[in-house]
């Protein structure tokens, strides 16, 4: 059996291997951890061998997936050990156990730096490797100059310099400012003359990263890159060690071509000519061979060459060669090559217009859609989606619809979305579009998001010619017995709006339409019931003169739902019933929906979201952004040219501007459908927006009608009170949830949500050690745009020292940043500190003042105390102000166990039986602060069983302030505070007109409420 050279370690690993199940393994691991912990803690120093052995064991256990929360210091201490063996273990284990965000790492920056600037080559290597693998910003700032020196030093051997190059690359990724561009480009060019291929490979990786951020500075590197590439491609003067299966350093070739893709063009004609020759050589000279590794390596180079050729948009014959090669690849058996063929075909579509050539391969691509490998199927789907245009849309969409039935669940949602978009974009006629989407809902209802059916509703509403057709189709589907609920929704909606257009057809009288919809009513969810109720109201409106029998039926349904458990439905039932009894005014209020303002398809937006960027920008993406691509996934068109032209993206007619909302407002508020993307919790609002009773703002309706408006205002008021943020445009961003409740929860727990609105979520995690604490704020951007001007400011009260780490001012879409707040408690106090947080979303500034859960109990540590100790302390602290007593009235009625729980939640350890009277509670804890260090606090509460609302409380400690503050603190916890919500100060910032914010102009429900 292979041996690690350390018996103890080998024995442990064998033991683990022999564990028959997970449970036994855990027991063995726990035993070992216990052992290691005591050994680490023991006063007796550990020998180097033991330390090393234990650190490896810890690492092994960690690798098995167990939490190891100790041993980090021991590991780190090995780094500064004098001998190689110890250092090596320290460095490697540290880089595995910790990541760049660990604060422990700061401790070793100095030792690491000493190793880097020291003379010992092997130590330098270890240190550079560590920093290269887990160095963070701190390292970047303190070590970058030293690492740069090593890289360019002529006295250093390649083994150090190649590590220095990659180490510098990491530091540069963490903080690009560490490299001063002036002059560095010349250094890079010199480095490219390097003879050692290890160094050259590393330097090339560094160059890729540099040029991805800034191509302008590194023009001078292009000719050298091309020279090296030429040399490699011709296999001139390449050491045997650096050929891989006969191919000269394939990785380096790939890297060079990667770097070249970041330059927009290559201007020097001679360089360009040699480069094209090389590319040509690679493309012509790569054959399929038997040896799989050789094949992979040569194709890795080939695919990179293709990418570079596409980027250079080279002469037409090179391009057509590319396409021909790709066409060959997508038909081969070898799955990797086929996968890459499909992937690159999709890419080539983005950069040049080769649709016609690629269309020839359509059948082959469709075959790939049925491949057993999901990776390949995904690529095929993407490609079909990318190559779709007006000429082949019908075929492709039909193919995809068919494929829906067999597609994996993981793919169906994406597939459904893509079908919907293609149908919308390339519909040869509108009825086809309606057919496709309804088929889609029918076949894959579960995977059709609301956006999709909302979009079809928009289309039909905006296109009068389409309405009868759509209504007829909807009715056809409703005749089916088994129907997806989404289909019920869309059909009910369409029939409510446009059913009357069918009234002359057989089987389509209002009564009949009502009957088939009503069959579905008993089985649907509340959301659908709401839609159906609106449909009924619409049917009534359109049935002129009224049919008494139908009216009675519908009224009885409204009455039935008047007492329904869901408020939205209840409200609708009440309102519709009242309205429908008003006669003529009903027709005004329940008139057909006006046309939707044209806006960018929510669906398109959605695909963009799903394709959102990863952190590093790729050359290809940069390129696509530069080009005015005609590919479907257009990046950020809205910001570029304002609203999208209707004709360009969709077959919808330009809407009549019959809504009195100015278009600027529409773009900023983005319409209701788009809002849904941001916040799923608004779904009832959405129903309101899309479907509810709509009256053009100019219509005047008698004011005394329903009582509903009052209700609406009230909810708005509540909303306004809870709101703590405000912005320039008064489309206020409200927190989703109750800030105060979160705060209270965090006072007791150490992690949770501090704040959340539709764009951002701030989570908090705190760690308390005696009088010190560290709070980490996790600030997550939930939206798909960057949040800018992010600012956080802490206003520490005098009793705390607080230090907030730097926060990046921009948070990229869907990204999370962390921000660290160090806290030191100076003296006891009940004040709270406030975090002043603000950010900008688009042009909207959002500001929140958030109380931080740095409260007194965070510095308490429960302590058990023996009766003897307790009483001796209790007696020695006999007088005020060290011991104070107070009778507290108006206490929450709590049973004794409840009260004990409350006390222990704020870190006071209740010791039962200490007080002989069972109605009394005695608790103890230690309070930590900088000024008085650890201080024992004692508490006694005497309750009166006959009157639970009053207690007598005695608090004692060795510090008068502490005694007082603690007494007040516990009192606050125990008494009922009338109107318990201390309104946070930011309320002063909020809109002065909370009843109807201006932005709700396009919210029909609110509008109606205002009118009534």
């Amino acid at each position, binding site marked *: 059996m*292979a041996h690690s050279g350390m018996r103890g370690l080998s024995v442990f690993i064998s033991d683990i*291997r022999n564990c028959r199940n997970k449970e036994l393994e855990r027991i063995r691991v726990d035993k070992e951890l216990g052992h290691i912990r005591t050994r680490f803690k023991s006063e007796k120093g550990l020998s180097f061998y033991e330390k090393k052995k234990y650190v490896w064991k810890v690492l092994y256990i960690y690798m*098995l997936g167990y939490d190891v929360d100790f041993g980090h210091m021991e590991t780190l201490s090995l780094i500064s050990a004098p001998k190689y063996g110890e250092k090596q273990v320290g460095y490697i284990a540290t880089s595995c156990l910790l990541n760049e965000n660990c604060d422990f790492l700061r401790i070793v920056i100095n030792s690491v730096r000493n190793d880097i600037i020291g003379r010992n080559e092997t130590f330098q290597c270890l240190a550079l490797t560590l920093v290269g*693998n*887990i160095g963070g910003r701190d390292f970047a700032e303190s070590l970058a100059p030293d690492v740069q020196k090593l890289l360019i030093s002529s006295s250093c051997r390649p083994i150090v310099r190649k590590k220095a190059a990659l180490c510098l690359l990491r530091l540069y990724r963490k903080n690009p400012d560490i490299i001063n561009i002036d002059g560095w480009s010349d250094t890079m060019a010199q480095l490219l003359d390097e003879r050692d291929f290890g160094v050259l490979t590393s330097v090339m990786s560094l160059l890729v990263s540099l040029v991805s951020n800034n191509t302008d500075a590194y023009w001078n590197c292009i000719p050298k890159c091309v020279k090296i590439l030429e040399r490699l491609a011709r296999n001139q003067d390449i050491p045997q060690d650096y050929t891989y299966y006969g191919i000269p350093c394939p990785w380096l070739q790939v890297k060079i071509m990667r770097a070249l893709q970041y330059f927009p063009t290559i201007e020097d004609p001679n360089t360009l000519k040699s480069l094209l020759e090389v590319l040509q050589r690679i493309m012509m000279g790569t054959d399929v061979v038997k040896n799989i590794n050789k094949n992979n390596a040569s194709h890795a180079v080939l695919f990179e060459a293709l990418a570079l050729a596409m980027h250079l948009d080279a002469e037409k014959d090179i391009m057509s060669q590319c396409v021909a090669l790709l066409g060959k690849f997508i038909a081969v058996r070898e799955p990797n090559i086929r996968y890459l063929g499909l992937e690159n075909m999709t890419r080539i579509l983005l950069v040049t217009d080769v649709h016609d050539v690629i269309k020839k391969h359509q059948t082959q691509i469709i075959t790939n859609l049925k491949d057993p490998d999901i990776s390949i199927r995904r690529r095929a789907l993407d490609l079909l989606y990318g190559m779709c245009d007006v000429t082949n849309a019908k075929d492709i969409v039909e193919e995809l619809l068919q494929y829906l039935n067999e597609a994996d669940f993981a793919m169906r949602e994406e597939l459904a979305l893509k079908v919907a978009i293609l149908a919308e974009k390339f519909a040869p006629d509108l009825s086809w579009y309606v057919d496709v989407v309804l088929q889609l809902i029918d076949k894959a209802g579960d995977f059709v998001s609301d956006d999709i059916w909302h979009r079809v509703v928009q289309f039909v509403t905006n296109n009068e010619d389409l309405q009868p057709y759509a209504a007829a189709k909807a009715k056809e589907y409703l005749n089916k017995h088994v129907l997806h609920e989404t289909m019920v929704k869309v059909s009910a909606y369409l029939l409510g709006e446009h059913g009357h257009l069918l009234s002359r057809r057989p089987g389509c009288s209002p009564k009949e339409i009502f009957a088939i919809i009503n069959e579905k009513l008993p089985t649907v969810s509340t959301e659908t019931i709401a839609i159906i109720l609106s449909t009924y109201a619409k049917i009534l409106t359109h049935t002129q003169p009224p049919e008494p029998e139908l009216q009675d039926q519908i009224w009885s349904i409204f009455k039935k739902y008047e007492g329904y458990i869901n408020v939205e439905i209840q409200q609708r039932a009440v309102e519709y019933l009242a309205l429908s009894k008003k006669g003529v005014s009903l027709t005004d209020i329940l008139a057909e929906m006006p046309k939707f303002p044209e806006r960018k398809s929510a669906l398109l937006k959605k695909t963009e979201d799903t394709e959102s960027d990863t952190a590093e920008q790729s050359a290809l993406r940069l390129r696509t952004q530069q080009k005015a691509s005609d590919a479907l996934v257009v990046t950020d068109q809205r910001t570029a040219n304002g609203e999208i032209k209707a004709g360009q993206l969709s077959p919808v007619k330009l809407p009549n501007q019959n809504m009195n909302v100015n278009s600027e407002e529409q773009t900023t508020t983005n319409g209701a459908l788009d809002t849904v993307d941001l916040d799923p919790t608004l779904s009832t609002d959405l129903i309101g927006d899309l479907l509810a009773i709509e009256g053009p703002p100019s219509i005047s309706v008698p004011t005394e009608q329903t009582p509903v408006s009052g209700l609406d205002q009230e909810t708005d008021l509540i909303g306004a009170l809870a709101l703590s943020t405000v912005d320039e445009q008064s489309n206020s961003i409200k927190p989703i949830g109750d800030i105060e409740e979160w705060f209270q929860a965090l006072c007791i727990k150490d992690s949770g949500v501090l704040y959340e609105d539709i764009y951002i979520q701030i989570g908090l995690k705190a760690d308390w050690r005696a009088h010190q604490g560290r709070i980490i704020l996790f600030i997550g951007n939930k939206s798909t745009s960057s949040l800018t001007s992010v600012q956080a400011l802490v206003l520490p009260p005098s009793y705390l020292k607080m230090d907030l780490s730097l926060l990046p001012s921009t948070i990229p879409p869907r990204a999370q940043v962390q921000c660290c707040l160090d806290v030191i408690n100076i003296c006891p106090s009940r004040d709270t500190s406030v975090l002043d947080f603000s950010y900008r979303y688009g042009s909207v500034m959002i500001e929140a003042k958030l109380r931080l859960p740095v409260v007194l109990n965070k510095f308490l540590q429960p302590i058990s105390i023996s009766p003897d100790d307790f009483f001796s302390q209790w007696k020695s602290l006999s007088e005020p102000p060290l011991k104070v007593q107070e009778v507290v009235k108006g206490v929450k009625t709590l049973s004794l166990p409840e009260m004990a729980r409350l006390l222990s939640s704020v870190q006071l350890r209740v010791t039962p039986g200490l007080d002989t009277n069972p109605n009394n509670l005695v608790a103890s804890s230690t309070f930590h602060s900088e000024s008085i260090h650890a201080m024992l606090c004692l508490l006694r509460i005497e309750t009166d069983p006959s009157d639970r609302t009053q207690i007598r409380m005695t608090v004692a400690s060795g510090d008068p302030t502490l005694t007082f503050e603690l007494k007040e603190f516990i009192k606050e916890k125990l008494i009922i505070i009338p109107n318990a919500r201390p309104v946070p100060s930011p309320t002063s910032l909020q809109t002065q007109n909370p009843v109807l914010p201006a932005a709700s102009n396009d919210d029909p429900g609110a509008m109606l409420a205002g009118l009534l």
Partner: protein
Amino acid sequence: MIHFVLLISRQGKVRLTKWYSPYHQKERSKVIRELSGVILTRAPKLCNFVEWRGLKVVYKRYASLYFCMCVDEDDNELETLEIIHHFVEILDRYFGSVCELDLIFNFHKAYYILDELLIAGELQESSKKTIARLIAAQDSLVETAKEEANSISNIIAQATK
């Protein structure tokens, strides 16, 4: 860049993990769990790439072990695949036809070797010979240190007898 390297056995046991992007402990376990689920269940003869959370995992099975490397979506997949093979060949050369047991009992050696191959998630050295030489040099450094320590402790042991 390579975000992380995983070695997982067919039974889902982790044999080596190396993270070049910051993942904290919880995320690490989650990633491993998720990817084991995806990769170990893939049939043979499919392609070596799996799309996962906007990234790509390139993997290859060698006997009972799956070697996985996670790269950016636009990275060159075949290049990564051959980095895996390169790593395996180096392990093979070091252990003399490497098997899973070698990597279990000498997991720390596997880490040394990986550190000579990759830094910052990028390839550092593509010559097998150079890497073999460096690892051998490291081993002998550790050995000499050990011998010194042994001889000193021997002397002390002798003296205190």
